[in-house]
Each structure stands twice: as C-alpha cells, then as structure tokens.
C-alpha cells in the first residue's frame, strides 16, 4: 500500500490550516422544488481532518445537499462555504480543492480507466502521469488501467470514481455512497483509505446507507430527514446507552422479574439474544452486581449497554421511512 496519498512530501504539513478549521459549512441552506422543500434550512459544519457521515433515508435531501455543495444545483436560499469561501461566488477557486464522487460513478465508458483520469484532469490544465499512477495504484486498478471502463464491474467503476476524486490530491473529499458495489474486502480497503486520508489531514464527507460502516469510519455524523437536520453529533455521543447495562446470566427471566419489582428497574427487559438490559441502582454497575448476587443470580458479565448507529438512525428517522417523529 502506498505510504502516503499526498504525493508532494509534507504537503499536508505545509498547509497552514489547523485542525478544527471548518472546511465545509452550510448556512440556512434550502432547496425548494415546486411545493416540496427538499432541503430545509440546513446548517452543517464539517471540520478539518474529520470523517463526517451524512445520513438520512432515501429522499431525505442528502444528494441535493451534496449537489448544492458542488455547485451543481443552485440553492433556493442560504449558502455553502468550502474552506471559508462561498461556493457560488468562488467555485473556480474552491472546487478544485475538493474531490467528489456523486451517486453512481459517472465515467466515459468508451475510454480506459487511465484515459478517464487524463480527460477529467485536463479540466485543471492536466495531471502528471506519475500522479495518475499513484491514484490508480491506490484504488487497485493499475492492472486494468488500459481496459475500457465498459468492461469494469460496478465495484471497479466505484474505485475509479474514487480515483477521480483523489486525482488532484484535494484537501477535502465529498463521497456519496463510496462503498456502493464494493465486495466485503473492498469495503474494508475503502474504510482503511478513509482513515489514512483523515490521518493526513484531509477532510472526508461521506453519505452512506451502510450504517455499520459509517459507525466504524466516521468521527461525527449528521442525520437529516425530510430535508431537515435531525441531529449532528459524535458517533460516541450518539451511540452511548441511556445509563443501562447488559447482563448475561442464567435464569435471565427470573432475574428480570426480580429487577422489575424494584423502583429503579421498571425499564428492564430482555434483548433478542436473551441478555438482560437494565438500569442500575443509582446508575452504578457495582450496585447492580451486588443486587443480583444477593438475589441469587450470579452474573457472567455486566457491561455498559450501547446502541448501534442503526438503532439510533431508525429511531430518529421513524424507521427510516422518512416520516416525522
């Protein structure tokens, strides 16, 4: 694997920008189609070095937001800033510093993978051949670089789309469903790539439906529904439990009955795997352990209960149906 994605040694370090700088910001961003408000007063901030997940059910307004960020769609109101510059007013200065993959990769099917990169790179005055070699190697397409893109699998096309996004070594990446069509190994490689990009100070903005992946890759996420921001938070805050504990033990049903008799234990329940999910006396696991032992139930394990991102997402988006909570 190439050790550095940034082919100019120290280029990231040379950048005077600090971590925490806002790379992408939307201010009261809205888009209306007829009577339908596709994006409603959206305010987002993505900071340098973050891997930011952008989640929402189908039709929530994710792609419309991304297209507005890239100047493909004009906002009805509000604005998008990238690296502190307004996209509408400064697109020629801003957008070359951002790589993007919007929805399914758009490629010249009649050309080879390498020629696709050359053609797209020419818009910015051309890309060095060595840089094309680097990105092709990076996405694992070196061996097929001379084959016509129409012979590529969906996963290979997706990789080429990512290569296009990385072509000019951008400071930020906007990727819409980057893992589409990738096999499990490809998804893992994509995850590694995102982490390496982030480690080099690049900012990655990902829209994805693969929630377990988002949970593993992203540092922060925003969830939108019906065009509105539902929440914007770190993964850690979003998935931490409500002070509950997961207990595995024998005779879980009997232990559940004993706990539910307590004032603090009314919310206790069994999960699908048979583990006991329960609050603890005064929120302390030690006291929960003591209570269970005194009642004659020796726990095998007691761990702090967490929610996965999928549960949080489904809860916040009303089952992912796009309905209002």
């Amino acid at each position: 694997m190439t050790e550095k994605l940034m082919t100019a040694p120290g280029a990231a370090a040379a950048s005077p920008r600090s971590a925490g700088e806002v790379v992408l910001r939307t201010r009261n961003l809205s888009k209306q189609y007829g009577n339908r408000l596709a994006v409603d007063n959206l305010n987002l901030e993505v900071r340098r070095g973050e891997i930011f997940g952008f989640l929402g059910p189908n039709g929530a307004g994710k792609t419309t937001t991304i297209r507005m960020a890239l100047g493909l769609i004009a906002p009805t109101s509000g604005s998008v800033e990238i690296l502190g510059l307004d996209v509408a007013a400064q697109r020629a200065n801003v957008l070359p510093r951002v790589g993007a993959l919007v929805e399914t990769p758009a490629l010249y099917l009649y050309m080879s993978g390498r020629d696709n990169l050359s053609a797209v790179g020419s818009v910015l005055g051309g890309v060095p051949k060595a840089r094309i070699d680097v990105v092709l190697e990076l996405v694992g397409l070196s061996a097929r670089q001379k084959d016509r893109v129409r012979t590529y699998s969906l996963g290979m096309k997706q990789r080429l789309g990512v290569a296009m996004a990385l072509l000019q070594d951008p400071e930020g990446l906007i990727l819409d469903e980057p893992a589409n069509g990738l096999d499990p190994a490809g998804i893992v490689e994509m995850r590694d790539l995102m982490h390496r990009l982030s480690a080099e100070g690049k900012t990655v903005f990902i829209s994805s439906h693969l929630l377990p992946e988002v949970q593993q890759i992203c540092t922060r996420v925003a969830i939108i529904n019906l065009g509105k921001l539902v929440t914007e938070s770190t993964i850690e805050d979003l998935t931490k439990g409500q002070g509950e504990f997961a207990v595995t033990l024998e005779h879980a049903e009997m232990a559940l009955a004993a706990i539910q008799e307590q004032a603090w234990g009314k919310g206790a329940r069994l999960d699908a795997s048979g583990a006991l999910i329960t609050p603890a006396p005064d929120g302390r696991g030690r006291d929960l352990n003591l209570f269970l032992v005194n009642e004659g139930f020796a726990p095998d394990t007691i761990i702090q209960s967490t929610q996965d991102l999928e549960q949080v997402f489904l809860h916040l988006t009303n089952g992912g149906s796009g309905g209002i909570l």
Partner: protein
Amino acid sequence: MSTAVVTPAPAEQMTKLHNATPSFFGTMRGEFFKIRRQWTTWIMLVLFLGVMILPFIIEATAPNVRTNIQTDPLHFFYNVLSIGMSIVRVFSGIFLLILTARVIGLEYQLGTIRVLLSRGVGRLQLLLAKLLTVAVIALALVVVGILLSYLLTVIVVAGVTGNLNAFSALNSTFWSDAGIYVLTILLNAGVTILLAAAAAVLGRSLAFGLSAALIFFPIDNIGTLIMQLAYRVTHNDFWLSLTAYFLGPNLNTMPVPLTSSRVEAIGQAPVYFADKVGTHGIQVDGTHTIVVALVYAAIFAVVAFVLTWKRDVKE
C-alpha cells in the same frame, strides 16, 4: 486498493496541481482527447472522405468529360466546384451534427457533466470550450474537404487530358465565387453546430440531441414540399411564403444568389427563390438567406447558453 509502492509525482508538479484552477484551454484539450478516443469520430471521418472521392470518380469516368474540359474548362470547373462544395457542405453538416450532439449529449447521458462541473469549471465555460473544439474541427474538416477537392480535380484533369492546361481558364471571378462558397459552408457549419448544441442541451441526452438535430433538416426540407401541398389545397400564398424562412432551404440556396447563380446547389430551395423582383412580398436573395441563417443561429445559441446557465444539473 493496493499495497504496491509507486513513484510519486515531483513535489513542484503536485504544488502546481494543488493550486490549479479550471483552464479553458485545458478543457478544450480534454474535449479533443475525448473526441479522439471515440470510434464514431474516425468512422465518420472515413465516410466523409469516401463520399468526397465518389463524385470525382463518377466525373472522371463520364463519357464526354475530356471534351467538356477542353471545350469549356471554366464550366467544367464550376460544375466540379458546385458538386464538390455541396458534398463538403452536406456531409460536413451531418458530421458536425453527430459530433456536437455526442460531445454535449454524451456528457449529460453518462452523467460526466457533474464530474467536470464539480472540478470548478463554469457551465458556460464548459459549453463554450466544447463549441470551440467542435468549431476548430469543423474548420479543419472544411479545409481538408477543400484541399481534397482541389487535389482530386487536379488528378481528374491530369488523368483525362494528360496535362493541367485547363487550369489556365480559372479567372478571378471563379476564385471569388469559390471563396464565397467556402464562407457559406462555414456559416452552414456554425449554424449546424449551434442547432445540435441546442438540441443536446434541451434534451440533456445523446439520444434526444442526436435525433432532434438529425431530423431537423429533413423536416424543413420536406416541409417545403408540404407547404406547396398546403398551397394547392388552400390557394393561399402564406404557405409558400413560409418556406422563405425555413433554415435548410435557405442554407441550400445561399451560395447561388451570392455568386449570381454561377454555382449550383443541391437540396430544396425556398419556393420564391426564383422570384427576383419579390412580387410575392418576399425576396429570397443572398442577404435574406444570410439573415435567416443568423437568426436561427442566434436562437439556437440563446437556447443552448441560457438552458446551460440556468438549469440545475441533476444528471
């Protein structure tokens, strides 16, 4: 995604890349590159050259060609000019319709327009770069067509008569007429490019752009015949007058009035073209044909540029 180590680009090249902004000529270079990579381009070029050669073969093998060249060489050259340039005009037109529709329509159809625009290139800048690229190709095509016509004429004359003496009959009027004919071909090419651009932008697809552009000229040529039928049924001059404003017939006819009918043209002409005194209220002369062509060109350009500028890119 790979584990191999590749040689990185030099630091200065990367710095240049980081600071790069969209380049108009870079965009044009990209367009040339994409056009070169399409088989359709080369197939059309071969067909164009093939079609160019065909009438000269017919001319060279005609029964009275030697007598014609020796007795009235100027008439022979005007004949060759009319046929050769008509073929350049019609087939370069078809070539450019297809090429322009592909260059613009394919970008929408494949969705690659969003890739280019998200690099920061402006919409109008991209459209202009595409049009200018096609215009350069059009110019090259016309130049190749003219040179090939000239070369084939030399070959025919030399082959049939055994010498090039007939060329001494060419006078300044002939060269002036030839120049005017070439200018009408260039105007024809410009309008054709803008027509295909408008159709491709309007339909945002290759299929629509290509179909609309290719069907336009047959329709307005056939339209002249339909207008004549309408006149026969209604006996109203209005229908015949309309043909004076059809684009195809005006382009077909343009070189004829501009050269005082010394050259001939192929294709439908407006019905009142022969009415030199304008007794029906419309005088289809050289100026009229140029004005009609320019008005159409302006309409096509406005449609292409305004739609490109104003519409969201959802491809």
